[in-house]
């Protein structure tokens, strides 16, 4: 067994794992954070997407031991308890989900996109979602939700900049 020390959603955790244990198993089974889903288990579908050291990764294709020393954010860590991240709110408002299985992965990938491109056009959003499959929505409303979130986050950033002390 190997000891894995990592920070998950801001909380330091240490878990004993076999080297073959996947990061997604550590997240779901050892830490009980079941918002991260396992869809295909073959790094195709993106349902297991989390952030590791600030970038989106498919946690079904990362060994838990590889995450030793890393900072991991899951869907549960996107907003304070009881609140919604702008992406979560926009998926709700724009009907960016039906069954919801792919949604956590969609949101984590979209958050990676918006971190580097605050105003993506539809093509950029669709390119960014290549590694996330949705079998319900046909993607249209997911793209609309991400665009909406980008707009809201830009307005939010501008407002907080205006309100900042001079």
């Amino acid at each position: 067994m190997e000891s894995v020390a990592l920070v998950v959603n801001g909380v330091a955790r240490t878990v004993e794992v076999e080297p073959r244990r996947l990061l997604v198993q550590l997240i779901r089974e050892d830490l009980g954070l079941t918002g991260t889903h396992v869809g295909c288990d073959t790094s195709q579908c993106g349902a297991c997407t989390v952030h590791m050291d600030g970038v989106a990764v498919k946690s079904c294709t990362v060994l838990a031991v590889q995450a030793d020393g890393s900072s991991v954010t899951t869907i549960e860590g996107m907003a304070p308890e009881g609140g919604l991240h702008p992406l979560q709110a926009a998926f709700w408002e724009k009907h960016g989900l039906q069954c919801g299985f792919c949604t956590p992965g969609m949101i984590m990938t979209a958050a990676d996109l918006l971190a580097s491109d605050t105003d993506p056009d539809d093509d950029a959003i669709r390119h960014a979602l290549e590694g996330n499959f949705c079998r319900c929505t046909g993607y249209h409303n997911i793209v609309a939700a991400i665009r909406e979130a980008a707009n809201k986050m830009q307005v939010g950033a501008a407002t907080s900049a205006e309100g900042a002390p001079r």
Partner: protein
Amino acid sequence: MSMAGFGYTRPATLDEALADLAKHGPDAKLIAGGHSLLPLMKMRLASVGHLVDIGRLRELKGIRDWNGGLAIGAATTYREVLGSALVRDRFPLLIEGLDDIGDIQVRNRGTLGGSLAHADPASDMPALALALDAELLLRSSGGERTVKVDGFFHGAFVSDLHPDEVMVEIRIPASPDGAGTSYVELTQPASGYSLVGVAVVLAKSGGTVSHVRVGVTGVADHAYRASAVESTLMGSDGGSAAIAAAAAHAADGQEVNSDIHADREYRTAMATAFTRRSVESAAARAT
């Protein structure tokens, strides 16, 4: 899917990694991003006794000037390369070719060296490296050597990298002045892998083609340089007729792959078509 058990170490230095490799012998396998290896292990197509994790070794990361070209650490991720102003400035071919690999999540983990070492016959990186005349710095506990990418691939998933070696760096020489580059691929829509991918670097001098490299992936059991295309183009005016004549040789000497996605006849035809398109595009960009 559950993998068979294995040992794991994450050495702090390259020397420690080489010692680890030597200690575990043929049972050991290197892992960096793991996006080629872990799926194979899950499907039990690869069995590994011990993984040596080199994904975080600083000695294998980063992008630096190399005689006007670039040296890219083997464990540098696609994302890091795509975000590099140096790469964008000197080798737009890499940007064009790597931006479509996998998806964001794969590009965040996958490494250039990992792709070359894995030697997947349908990967993009081998064709790009061939067109760019890249060479590889390989190190073992016994010493180091430099090899050309041309000749590095021996077959499907088989390369010249010895079991006790680590790829340290990918060295890309400066392209000739005014060279135009292009990467054009026909992808399998579901997997995104190349049925045919053609990378071209082409320069003209005094109205004739003075330098051309054509790297082809997806067509044969390993990526190759289309030498007959290159030799037909050299010295020509690089016009449409010359390009079409040269592209007809895209699969010369190759045992062309045949599968449910593209049989031999179709894939051979596409090798020619996509070689023509890629050379046309590179020639149009050459100044």
